Structure formats: C-alpha cells, structure tokens
C-alpha cells in the first residue's frame, strides 16, 4: 500500500497541479468576461514546449531546473494527501521546510547561469518576497508545533481529525488567518506577482527558459501551487480521510487564492514586504503568544 502511494502521490500532485494551472487560466478568463482556454491548455503548452528546440547556458542551467523539480516532488512525498504520506517520519515537517526552499533556489541557480539581467532582478525579488513570507510562516508553523506537541505533519493531521480542525479552534484561528493572508505570496499570485512580472522584467526567472526548460519550469510552478495549497489543507483544515475530499478542500482554497488574484493589483516588492511583515506577522505573533500562554 505504501509502495503504491510512492507512485500515486507524485502523479496526483502532477495532475492536480496541471489542472490548477488550467483552471486558473479559465477562472481568470471567466472573471474577465472571456471564454478562456480549455482546461487542458497547460498540457498542450507543455507538449509544445517539450518538442521545441532550446539553448542551454551551461550545466548549472540544466541541473537547476531538475533540482527544483525534484525537490518539489520530494516535498509531495512528505505530504499526506488524504491518507498516509509515503515518507513520514517524526521530523517530516522540518524536512519539508528545508526542501521547500530548494524550489526557488534551483530556479535561482539555473537562472543565474543565464546571466540575463531580467532573471537576476526576478530572482532577487523572489528571495526578498520569500524573506517576507517566511517570517510569518515560521511563526505559524511554530504555533502549530507547540500546540500539538509534534513536528510531524501526519500527527498534526491525525490530532485535528480527533478534535476540531486547527482553523476552527480558538488560539490557532489566528495562525489560520495569518496563513490565509500570506497564501497569495506563497502561491505567487497577483498581489505578489512581481517576481515573474511579464511586462516589466520579461517574466523574471523564466525569461531565459525556452522549450523543455520552460516545460519543466511550468510543471514546477504547478507543483509549487499544489504544495502551498495542500500544506494549508493539511496543517490548518484537518487534511482529509480520502483523496477526493482532500481535493475538494484544495479547490476551495484555490478559489480563494485566485479570487484574490483577480481582485487586487500588483504590489511593488517593498510594498509586499511591508505588508507581509505587518499584518500577517502581527496576527501570527499574537497566535504564537496565545498558544504559548494558553496552550491546549
């Protein structure tokens, strides 16, 4: 059973991630009163990109994309997707925190090799933005670990299954709100879209990717979206007992994220950091203090 999950969960992440990419384009199109592309448009794009020729800028350019994609797949293995996670140990969550940084880092390494100024600007913006949301995110994580007394995602999910889900229980509701506030930044959608701004810096870190590289980067983007949403569902919404319910819960969070994407204009990077270090950090800090003083 566990062997099966080793194969199933990356495949599920891939499928759901690509589905979300297609759904997001369709979703935005409907909000903008357009028809929009078919749901399988990302598949067509990826097929087209894989069959195009491309140039490589060096060995690190090739390896960085692979590193980023591989780390995203490994993170997926640690994630209980409505069942047991294939790789779950007591320290699973800490590993996930480290591995999640490898995604942007791989893209940064790869883009750095290309020596395109737009890529460099995009990467520096991405790292600054990561600095912005990592602070409240670590506070949320710390509050959850303190509250449930464990550093395993699986045990956090199991504990929520016994009582209420975290976002519905008193001290942790602050952490939940803070997570919702930083979720667009973690997904990289509109108010925090400045990393890959197509009009200003020619899509930022992806500016030098063409052909298969772009296909891999697109898949990585889908996986990042999948991880960000599934982490929220697992940590704060009590996971799910089967993949279908898990997927439906993810869909709700996704709809929230893309509603924000459609409704808000883009923030400059210093405005984004000012926002992220003010309200989400404050609320997450209040949550952490409450958890530390009141406890369970």
């Amino acid at each position: 059973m566990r062997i099966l999950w080793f194969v199933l969960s990356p495949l599920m992440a891939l499928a759901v991630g690509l589905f979300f990419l297609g759904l997001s384009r369709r979703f935005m199109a409907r909000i903008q009163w357009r028809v929009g592309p078919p749901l399988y448009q990302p598949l067509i794009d990826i097929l087209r990109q894989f069959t195009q020729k491309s140039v490589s800028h060096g060995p690190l350019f090739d390896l960085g994309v692979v590193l980023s994609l591989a780390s995203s797949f490994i993170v997926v293995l640690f994630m209980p997707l409505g069942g047991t996670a294939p790789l779950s140990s007591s320290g699973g969550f800490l590993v996930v925190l480290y591995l999640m940084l490898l995604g942007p880092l791989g893209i940064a390494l790869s883009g750095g090799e290309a020596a395109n100024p737009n890529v460099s600007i995009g990467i520096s913006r991405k790292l600054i933005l990561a600095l912005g949301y990592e602070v409240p995110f670590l506070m949320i994580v710390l509050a959850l670990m303190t509250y449930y007394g464990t550093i395993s995602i699986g045990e956090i999910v199991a504990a929520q299954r016994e009582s209420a889900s975290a976002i519905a229980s008193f001290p942790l509701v602050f952490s939940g709100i803070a997570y919702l506030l930083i979720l667009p930044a973690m997904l990289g959608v509109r108010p925090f879209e400045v990393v890959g701004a197509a009009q200003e810096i020619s899509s930022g870190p992806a500016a030098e990717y063409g052909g298969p590289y772009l296909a891999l980067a697109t898949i990585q983007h889908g996986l990042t979206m999948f991880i960000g949403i599934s982490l929220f569902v697992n940590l704060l919404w009590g996971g799910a007992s089967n993949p279908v319910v898990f997927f439906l819960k993810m869909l709700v969070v996704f709809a929230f994220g893309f509603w924000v994407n459609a409704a808000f204009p883009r923030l400059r990077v210093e405005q984004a950091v000012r926002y992220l270090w003010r309200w989400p950090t404050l609320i997450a800090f209040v949550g952490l203090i409450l958890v530390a003083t009141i406890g369970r």
Partner: protein
Amino acid sequence: MDRNQLMKWIKAPTKMAHKYSLNAVYFCTGCGVIEVPPTITSRWDAERFGVVPTATARQANLFLITGYVSVKTLRAIIRTYEQMPEPKYTVGFGSCTINGGMYWDSYNTINQLDKYIPIDGYIAGCMPRPEAIFVAVTHLWTLIDKDMADGYKRYRKNYAAYRANQEMILGEMEWPPIFQTEVATAITEREG
C-alpha cells in the same frame, strides 16, 4: 477547429500541440500593435484558441510583426527571430510588411520584410481588423497541418542569402552568423 478530435492528437501530437499553443512575442514595430490589445483581451479573447502573448522570445513560437519596419527595428527583429526556439512561425501584419505600404518611399523603412527573414503568411490591410488576426491564425493552422509553415527551415536552408541581405542594409552586424552554412545544410538534409 479540430482541437477536440482525439484521433488527430494520437496521430500527430506534435503538430497539434504546435497548432493550439501559439505563443506570440510581445514585439511591437509599428502602429499595427494597437490591434493586438483588443485581440487578447475581453473583446476578442485570442486565448480561447491558445494564442497568448509571451514576454520573451525564448518562450514563443509565433512572431507577429505589426506594421512598418525601420532599419533600426529590423536589427531587433532579426535578433528576436534568431532567439526563438524552432519550430517558429512568422506572420507579417499589415501592408507595410508586404511592400512598404504607405511608407513605400520612406528613407528609413525597409519595404519587403521577406527579404530579411522568412515569413509564413501575411495579413493584408491598413489596418487589418482583429478578426484578420484570427483568419491568419486559422490559416496558419492549415499551413502547419500541411507542413507548409516551414519558414524556419527555409531560413536555415538559405541562411547565407538571408544573412547577405541583412548585412546589405545593416552593415556590419554585431553578432556572428547563427548557422555556419555547412552546418545549416547538414541539418536540413537530416531533418528535411
């Protein structure tokens, strides 16, 4: 539109993918680009056919040259065209790219674009309406289906002639030839 016909996808997946994922370069040469915003936004919504603009030449496979081309722009056009990954398609938009249009006797606009880069199709008119872009896209589908959108192959095959023409107008170009002629011939023979 045969996007939903599964048999065609099974028979020629590459061709179908190239047909329904035409990503155009954001490159505006002349007045023609004013027709592109309504084409890609709510009024005409080109995205439903998979036609979206992309920010960089590396991610694109459709080059829409919108309007008159001055000598300085020609340099940028050639650079952008050579940066695009193959297979790539070019469409000249407006009469200026065909024969110079109303700028036929201008001191600074090249008259026929297909002397410098290969063109797969033209949209005639001054200005063509956004509908004309869709007509061009559907026509390009037909060309891709019949393997007739082969501008990039012609460029490789006749690279020496194209490069000579480019240097006639631009003088010394600051980048080396992208194909050595023998290499280009070899690739052409291998891939047809």
